[in-house]
């Protein structure tokens, strides 16, 4: 029994080690040119992050920046992105005025592959946020990339902080120049199984505690012998003092 419990405990330890959320938050520096990212010390690979915001809501994606993805036990990601041009800023405000959408997309990639050709897959992952939220938050957005167990990118999401559209006017053009992006890549967490090992351990502790307390160890009679004895004496005394009432009835 001891061996089995030990084993289970070990498994529990291993599973708790595995239960590490593979999340990595990277706040990127902005304002660099896209081309710079390619030749830096990152051993990862780069994919374009594209965005689209049009008054007629027909998507026309243009490059916003470059994502550098690094596969490994914990995936990591960083982003270099351009500033918004004067023209784009005006358009974004215009789109926000008609309650249009600001969309982003990234190509589907396989992070674990070694060669560039294997990484790319056809199709894109897209997400959106209301353009007015983008404007009112002064381009501060939170972009999250999601990968699955085997390292495929399966989804992307974008939210702004704050997220609401209150209709406040953004006066200063400078506020819409630079993206203030918080970027993260998330892998699925390991869902916990039933916690048998810990439960058994706790049970054992409880039994040990009981074992230490000698009061608990005593049997029922050992604990309450005086009460039982007293009760019995009392019963006998009442019986002998009073002749049974039923007996009289029988005699008559």
């Amino acid at each position, binding site marked *: 029994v001891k061996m089995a419990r030990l084993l289970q405990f070990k498994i529990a330890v291993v599973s708790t080690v595995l239960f590490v959320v593979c999340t990595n938050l990277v706040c990127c520096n902005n304002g660099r040119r896209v081309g710079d990212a390619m030749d830096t010390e990152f051993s990862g690979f780069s994919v374009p992050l594209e965005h689209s915001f049009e008054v007629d809501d027909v998507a026309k994606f243009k490059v916003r920046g470059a994502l550098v993805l690094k596969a490994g036990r914990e995936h990591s990601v960083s982003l270099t992105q351009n500033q918004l041009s004067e023209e784009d800023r005006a358009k974004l405000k215009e789109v926000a005025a008609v309650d249009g959408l600001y969309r982003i997309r990234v190509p589907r990639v396989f992070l674990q592959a070694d060669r560039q050709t294997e990484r790319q897959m056809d199709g894109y992952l897209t997400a959106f946020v209301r353009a007015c939220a983008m404007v009112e938050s002064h381009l501060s957005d939170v972009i999250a990339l999601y990968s699955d167990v085997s390292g495929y990118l399966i989804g992307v999401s974008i939210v*702004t902080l704050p997220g609401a559209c209150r209709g406040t006017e953004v006066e200063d053009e400078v506020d819409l120049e630079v993206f203030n992006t918080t970027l993260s890549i998330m892998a699925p967490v390991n869902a916990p199984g039933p916690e048998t090992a810990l439960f058994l351990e706790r049970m054992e502790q409880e039994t040990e505690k009981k074992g230490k307390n000698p009061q608990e160890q005593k049997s029922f009679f050992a604990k309450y012998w005086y009460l039982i004895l007293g009760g019995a004496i009392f019963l006998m005394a009442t019986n002998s003092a009073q002749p049974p009432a039923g007996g009289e009835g029988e005699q008559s």
Partner: protein
Amino acid sequence: MAKLILLCLKFIILSSAVEAVFEDQVGKFDWRQEYVGKVRFSHFDTHVQSSKKVLLATENNVFAALNTRTGELFWRHVDKTGPEGNIDALLQHGQDVVLVVGNGRLLRSWEINVGGLNWEIVLDSGSFQSACLVGQQDNVKHVAVLKKTVISFHYLSNGHQKWIENLPESETVDYQSVYSDGNGEVYALGIVPHSHIAIVAYSVEDGEIIKQVTMIHSSSIKYAVCVVISQGMLTCVDPLTVSLYMLDLHTESQMTQIPLQAMLVSFATTGEKTVAAVMSPKNKTASSLNLFSAETGRRLLDTTLIFNMDPYGGKPEKLHVQAFLKKDDSVGYRVMVQTEDHTLTFIQQPGRVMWTREEALSDVVTMEMVDLPLTGTQAELEGEFGKKADGLMSMVLKRLSSQLILLQAWIAHLWKLFYDARKPRSQVKNEVTIENLSRDEFNLQKMMVMVTASGKLFGIDSKTGSILWRHYLDNIPSNAAFKLMVQRTTAHFPHPPQCTLLIKDKDTGLATLHVFNPIFGKKSHVSPPALPQPILQSLMLPLMDQDYAKVLLLVDDQYKVSAFPSTKNVLQQLQEMASSIFFYLVDSTQGRLSGYRLRTDLSTELIWEVVIPAEVQKIVSVKGKRPNEHVHSQGRVMGDRSVLYKYLNPNLLAVVTESTDLHQERSFVGILLIDGVTGRIIHEAVQRKARGPVHVVHSENWVVYEYWSTKSRRNEFSVIELYEGMELYNSTVFSSLDRPHAPQVLQQSYIFPSYISTLEATLTEKGITSRHLLIGLPSGGILSLPKMFLDPRRPEIVSEQSREENLIPYAPELLIRTEWFINYNQTVSRVRGIYTAPSGLESTCLVVAYGLDIYQTRVYPSKQFDVLKDDYDYMLISSVLFALFFATMISKRLAEVKLLNRAWR
């Protein structure tokens, strides 16, 4: 281990009270109906003259005995589903019935009086063809089983094999039937298509081939029904030329052809005579049945029977004839007609229907519960409030007229009470008919609208289980998918309630709509739109048109949206709302989830896309929340009196995936929580070393799923709960577009000691009552497991705060307690689905479990806190009340007198 279990038990006993039914409550609020399915074989028990049994073997692998007088079940045996339990043949001799099961895998003998198993043996593998009993009338001792290549011979008493022989030329000859007349020979009959009939005769004693005959037959037909009747006559019915062929096996003569005018034919034997019952159409609504002598082909006199077809049913499909000899030695008969909608109708000779059984109900696909309409008087009152005010005078008049109607109804009710009271109690019937249907005080009685796989719709009264209407939809494709939606409830008098059934062909994607009134089952006069394009998705909007019908949107494969009803009013509303109508599509073959937004011109635009690579994992189910669900409390009060707010996203989808790799070390189950509007992945988890089938319930702020753990080889439950945290982001309204913070995710798993068939959660009117999970077990039990046990906040170490919060300490195993079975001993076989509906009482949830059987009951997850008990002592409470009242009166009087006296002094 024993201590562990003991401790668990202690915790459970401490934490929840008993909630089983009392003996006198059995059958009071619940009912069960047992079905057998579409009949494949039937055999009338004739060995005793007075016997009233018919033995049935069905497509659902059920073997049962029915009472021919009432149509009720004597007993029933439910075998495995699928080809393993498939019943290939049914033979009866005296008290025994021999079944061949599982494509010739098993040979079983049953005793028919009580339905006990006599013996069972395993046969050699091989494709089953035919079986027959060998012996004279009352002296049958053997059974012969013909397979594709071999014929085997068994003792009837114990099933042991006597001999087994290979069939000659089995590659070319298609052996179809086996026959014996009991004279020491067994004939195997084979057909070489387009050529000849081959007959091989074996000796009963040792299996030696006695002779081999081939016969050229005139036409190149493949026979539909062939039987060998008592004198060695092979009789075949050819459905193409509508004629009867006869062949004497002993004389080996040419076949004789007898033309018939018929639709359906069935054979039956009584005593020495074999007859063929022939059904032929008479007119549109009725068919006539006649008996023909099988020996001569002549029609028997006085045997005509008229079968009136149900206008809401299907066409006759099969006949099962019970022939018997009358006192004057002529042949009489009763017939069981099986129609396309799987209904069995048992008819006696002049055409009197003795009983009908709706076997389509053994295969319910989907259902809804609809409130019953108000009575005329209630509706009158409601209508008064609904109408617009138009002047003081007319309002007064209207009020007076409705009061008058109420008075009239009350007097009529009193008169009826008085009238009924004079009659003896047995004559007073409280039968529910479609006319006197009305809502009860607490809305506990509802109309159950059930859709079956055969395409027959039923309206069933939930209180009694009686079928109030039925409607057969012909030309339903065999692989149809159904979706039933309630477009208008009964709340909008005088508009009738309206249900819409979407019937979609799974292969082509083409769909049709059937619009009907759920209370009467009648097809609505509203004509549904024609749908020429395959339909990808349908969604019901909370928008209503001017007639209070909810708007149904249908998305076709061009991503164009059509609305039903599509009146001007609806289109205008849709245009206004378009930018806030989002929907999602799931393509499980490519693993693609995509979100769309409606445009004002009813086209759509793609706004988000999530792609789960189909080569790694496949999407097995996508579950949203139920639209009619209410959540009463926004958060949970913690031990320190702070509030933990729930993440109540109505657009949240739970997506379950299973790995394509099924190796037990590498297989996994994935759970994705995705916002259906923005496509944002809220949570992504992987249950490693796990496998399906996964059952999911998604409600409030939690998802419960069940899977098979390949590592520990057991079933496990896991629960995910989502919380916003200690403060709400925007407490007034929830918008998926404005919730930047991801919720906190808590998860815990438990061991469950049984497989499960289906999973559902209880639902109540306002969501105040605590929730239970209803678990359909393969054993036929329905377990009501309190959600309290599946709570990821159950602490591993008990603290003062967790005790304050009433959290049960964590125990890895969920136990099954017998009091939790809501169907006590009423086993529900092969439960496939559980439907829950709220009632008018907050404490009560209506539950229907369906599968082979249908079971309806009520559950009270937090007990009946809003109902007085049945044995509540009204006398005591009122007498105490009165006594107190009089006591105060008297003491008041006395006090007054005393005061007065004191004043005089």
